[in-house]
């Protein structure tokens, strides 16, 4: 397709971040803010992918370690580590990522199904991929990433 047409279809803006060497994207509309690392209070008796809670502008905000959540190898925090704060279920949730690289336009038409993808991440968390110049941007399905199926399971067990 011609470049013009693509430009016309740029109906999305993505926050692009890096995680274990791969690039990921979420719709900027669901991102509230991007912050630097803050002291995280670990909450005992919660799944390991929940890093803990932070004080985000006076609000207690949970932080999810995306590497752990997506089953990637763990790494120490660096200077580049960021907390991408997204809104989910009317609540703010922080996502720990290795680095935020850019905010870029995209069009929904560019998003391809994740089937052709070779990645360490389970496809259940992926909404699709976008082919950028020399790499892929993996679009995350936030609703699924942030689903507490461990708790759903607990609830089911309690009920039955």
């Amino acid at each position: 397709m011609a470049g013009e047409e693509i430009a016309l279809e740029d109906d999305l803006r993505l926050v692009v971040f890096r995680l274990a060497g791969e690039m990921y994207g979420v719709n900027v509309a669901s991102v509230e803010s991007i912050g630097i690392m803050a002291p995280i209070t670990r909450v005992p008796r919660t799944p390991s992918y929940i890093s803990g809670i932070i004080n985000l502008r006076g609000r207690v905000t949970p932080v999810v370690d995306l590497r752990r959540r997506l089953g990637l190898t763990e790494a120490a925090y660096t200077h580049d580590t960021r907390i991408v704060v997204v809104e989910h279920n009317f609540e703010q949730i922080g996502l720990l990522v290795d680095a935020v690289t850019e905010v870029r336009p995209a069009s929904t038409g560019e998003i391809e199904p994740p089937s052709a993808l070779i990645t360490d991440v389970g496809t259940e968390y992926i909404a699709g991929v976008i082919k950028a110049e020399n790499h892929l941007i993996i679009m995350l399905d936030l609703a699924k990433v942030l689903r507490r199926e461990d708790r759903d399971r607990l609830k089911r067990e309690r009920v039955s």
Partner: protein
Amino acid sequence: MGLNLNASPEDLKVFLEEAEELLQLVEEDLVRLEKEEDTDGLIQEIFRAAHTLKGSSATIGHQKMAELTHAMENVLDKLRKDELDLTTQTMDVLLECLDLLRIMKDDIARDEDSGADPSSLLARLKSIADEVALVTGAGQTPAPAAPAATATPGGLGWQELARAAEAVQRGQSVRTAEIVFSEDCPMPAVRAFQAIVALEQLGEVLGSQPTMDEIEREHVQGSVAVTFANAVPDEQVRAAIVAVGDIRAVTFKPVNIEGQAAAKPDAPASAVPAGDQKRPADVKSAPARTTTSHTVRVDVGLLDNLMNLVGELVIDRTRLAQILQQFESKSGNDDLTAEMSRTSVHIGRVSTDLQEEIMKARMLPVDNLFKKFPRMVRDLSIKAGKDIDFVMTGQETELDRSMIEEISDPLMHLLRNSVDHGIELPADRQAAGKPRKGRVVLSAAHEESHIIITVSDDGKGIDPEKIKAAAVRKGILTEEAARRLSEREAIDLIFAAGFSTNEKVSEVSGRGVGMDVVRTNIERLSGAIEIETAVGKGTTFRLKLPLTLAIIKALLVNVGENIYCIPLSSVTETLHSGRDQVSTVKTREVTVNRGQVLPLLRLRRLFGEPEAADEELVYIVVVTFGGEQVGLVVDSLVGEQEVVIKSLTKFIGDVPGMSGATILGDGRVGLIIDVPSLVKTAMAAAD
């Protein structure tokens, strides 16, 4: 139609606020009066309130209110002198006066005359007061003969002199103000009283001629002399006194304390009226009142605005931090950026504190809500012909202001239900082998991450069969569906829309807007309502409400990298115990404290932290849970602090052993331990 009052809008606002406070006080005291043994203090307080109200209503020119409070005062005066016994009739008349005063107050607020007419109440009050006069035959006691002649100047007894001497030591000056009222002053006693109140605002009032007692009995001629101590210049004191109105002149005379103190032993001068004996206590209570009033009335809307503004400030703080970051990346880490970074951190801390303080300002003890219920229950039970003992507990439990407003109606409804439908008539109770007097209990308490408010009665309970029958009759259920319901499901039907089992509709409840509205309101606050009932035994409604903004006092401790807050209400003591004093009994660590074996729980282990290196000493926080004591082993103690409980967020959800989180002074997040749930789960895991 307007009331044509003689007051500016600002004055009226002050008047209305004061009046509301006084009326509330009178109401509480009147209801307590019926229940409590020691009534002297209460009557005195009611008398004072009526008196103040008389004064202020006269000032704004509301004659009817002044007349009514004046008549009330007469009856109250006789009550406090034991010339009159407190009967239910007197009580009813006083309460009706109160209601009428409320109506008048509301009229003033709207500047409308709803035609509230005190004449019948005035007549009834007069007949109560006159009856006394007939019985005692005493009539009016004559004014005491010029006590000023024999009393020490300024009318000071030796106790007052001692206080005067203390005031002088504090650097205050003791003076007597001679206040002369203008000749056409309609109520000099009221003005005298107001002048004394004005002086109390500025410092300590030591005494007056005529005495407080005499002023209250209206024995005031053209002037009053008030001896007071403060460090306020004469002119300012004069201005405060003159502001009372109807005052012609104020002159000051210094009081020489030393010469007076020597005169101490001749205190019981014969001409001092009997009422004077009481005076020191009266006068003393007045400064106490001024010192407790370190409070200011604030519009809730103002608090909400403040809250929003702080929210903006907090956002700007974050912006500032971001800008600083960019600044740093551009110009490196020079002195200026370092300074800016420090300032930015400080602003951050201040705004967080500010936010927290405003949140605290929004908290109120539920007492603010509860206090209107005794009167309501009293009136309802009299109307329904029931004899009810109404008990409230946990009034000090704090709730967010908005929450208090929201739960007012549901609670009122539940209480009405208990009185109307729960408690049986005295005769029925007796027949059922119960005490004639029913009991309704309203209680509040913090529990885990919630506030629990219960309304329980020892009445007839709810019969699931009757509920089912009523549901079928009202067409809510088919007979078939009703038969299949469990007892619990049947009882839950009372929450169904438009359901009311009340056969005869009473004035206050059973109007169709029933339990369904209560439940909706509670659920809107993300709360829950539960019902427990047993036929013949009683019913308990249990409201469980989130306490997102509740505040607790907590002991802060270190465990691993985290700070945990242990509610002080469950902490008994803290121990600093030697390593060798800890022993193991059947896989469980224990220590001996005050001769008792104390089971220990290591919080590091419970919270999945790596075990600490063996220290010589261990810090133990002894907590009480269900009457048993358990020692929580922590790394170290940080201190005590009030913390604002915030929820752990929906995403994290309920965590066993934790009731929430709080933002600490340094901006970090601390976790709040839920002692019962922590101990329960830990013990269960160990067994």
